């Protein structure tokens, strides 16, 4: 999915910058960041703020699930889905 590549890059960059364990463990786009403790509850809040600002999407409370946040790839797909939804609404 080419439209996801850009999101993956931006999310990966943010995670490497803000989550020290991610850098130390050299995480890949498919690594589970929740189980490994790289992203904790406060980390999710930071990611939500980042996604909303960076991709102009709205994250609702029902979106806060492991499925949407466990890997960088999942996050990129999640953001793409949100963008599609808000595009459909406009």
């Amino acid at each position, binding site marked *: 999915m080419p439209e996801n590549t850009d999101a993956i890059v931006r999310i990966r960059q943010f995670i490497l910058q*803000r989550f*020290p364990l991610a850098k130390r463990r050299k995480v890949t786009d498919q690594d589970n960041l929740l189980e490994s403790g790289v992203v904790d509850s406060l980390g999710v*809040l930071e990611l939500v703020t980042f996604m909303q600002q960076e991709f102009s999407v709205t994250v609702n409370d029902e979106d806060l699930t492991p499925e949407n946040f466990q890997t960088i790839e999942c996050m990129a797909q999640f953001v793409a889905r949100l963008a599609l939804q808000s595009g459909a609404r406009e």
Partner: protein
Amino acid sequence: MDFLIHHMLRNSAATYPEKEAVVHGSRRLKYREVADRCASIASGLRSASMQRGDRVGIYLDPSVEQVLSIFSVSQGGGVYVPINTVLVPEQVAHIARDCGMKALITTPDKLATLAPALHDISSLQFFVLTDPPDGNVQSKPCHALDDWLRLPVAEQWSDWGISKDLAAILYTSGSTGKPKGVMLSHANVMAGSTIVSTYLGISDRERILAVLPFSFDAGMNQLMTAFEHGATIVLIKFVFAKEIINALLGEHITALAGVPTVWSLLANGGIVKHKFPELRYITNTGGAMPQAVLNVLRESLPTTKIFLMYGLTEAFRSTYLPPEELDRRPTSMGKAIPDTEILVLNEHGGRCEPGEVGELVHRGPTVSMGYWGNREATDRVLKPNPLLPPELGDCEKVCYSGDLVRMDDDGFLYYVGRRDTMIKSSGYRISPTEVEEVLFQTGKIRQAAVIGIPDEVLGQTIKAFIVAKDGAPLDCDAIQEFCVEKMPRYMVPKNFEILQELPKTSSGKVDYPALRRREGL
């Protein structure tokens, strides 16, 4: 007679041997099993040369082993030092060095991360690992918890300590310097447990969900109240509010303690969509609960009692607001817990009039033994009770909280602010100087000062004011990235502002009030 922490376990194991004591995921241990395992591990610790009063660090995520470790160290006659696993290796090393730690209980994975930071700590003589070692050779002996579990349980157990002895050291931050170790005696911890369970009405029927770390006094107290009464404690590590909600429902939880951040997550994370008829009470501590969050909780939990509490590690637990007062005084921090007196004192050590702002001073059986190895800091916080008649001498120490409060005509207290510059974020106490020291470590900054900015979810977030060395341009993103490497997330400044010069007081110190005024605070 029960006078040591593990006596509470012994007592509950005798009364409720087949009752569920600890639950973590699919693991469920009964009181009999917990007591037997703790006795075995205590023997193991003694055989590995743990002496009376030796400090044993526990660096574990929420787990059955974490609970076993706490009670085993107590039973073996040692002092347990629970360490939050969000801390970075350098901070763990500070704690180990500061308390002269003799042993550390952790996992092989965690030890691999910590080992480089711990290698030069001479007091540290052995490690205890919860899983078989992963082949990494350590410079010190490693014992396996599993091996000790096979040790026979001694028929006659002899305790070494009395209730006055040190039981635990909880590391916490003040307004300056590195974290200090608050010393709690067995009597302190047990008094805290009995007092809190009295006003919360805790019985053996309770199923308590522990989401707060045991390195935090209120978190540890949940464990103690459970074991004192033969209740069940359920441990989880959560990332999403949904995980807490699922545990509340799936484990039939009756009691939950949280800090404001936990309640904000729950209020924004779908708590309104469920019903929790089994949840008997919730308690908030570690900062004021935002009124909007409180309103959501009151609406979503109509049958649950909500207790707003206040405490500081140095005096364990101090005040609570009875649920029936919530309507009348939703912004109050309540009044003294049982067997405790809360004084509001002015600068001369006299009592404040109702409405007058003074320092909250705590008097009672949970006043801690002070800071480990730091008499100077202890003397600033624990002082002779100024209201006692002189004939009694200095027989009693009271705890000066550093929190400014006022009391209303009915004796209810209201939080006003801090005497010092300490910051509180998501329940954690943060010393500005500790953050500033890390900023200086970048080598790019000449002056730095951090302050707390009010935040709906976190209580406060950190803003850093920095002045560049030689006027060189500063890259705030790079500085933040540096901070993220050196500190846990809750300590990292969220915002940066570059100044030409920091405002100073007439004595040349950083003028923190001026920085706060800049932010309209």
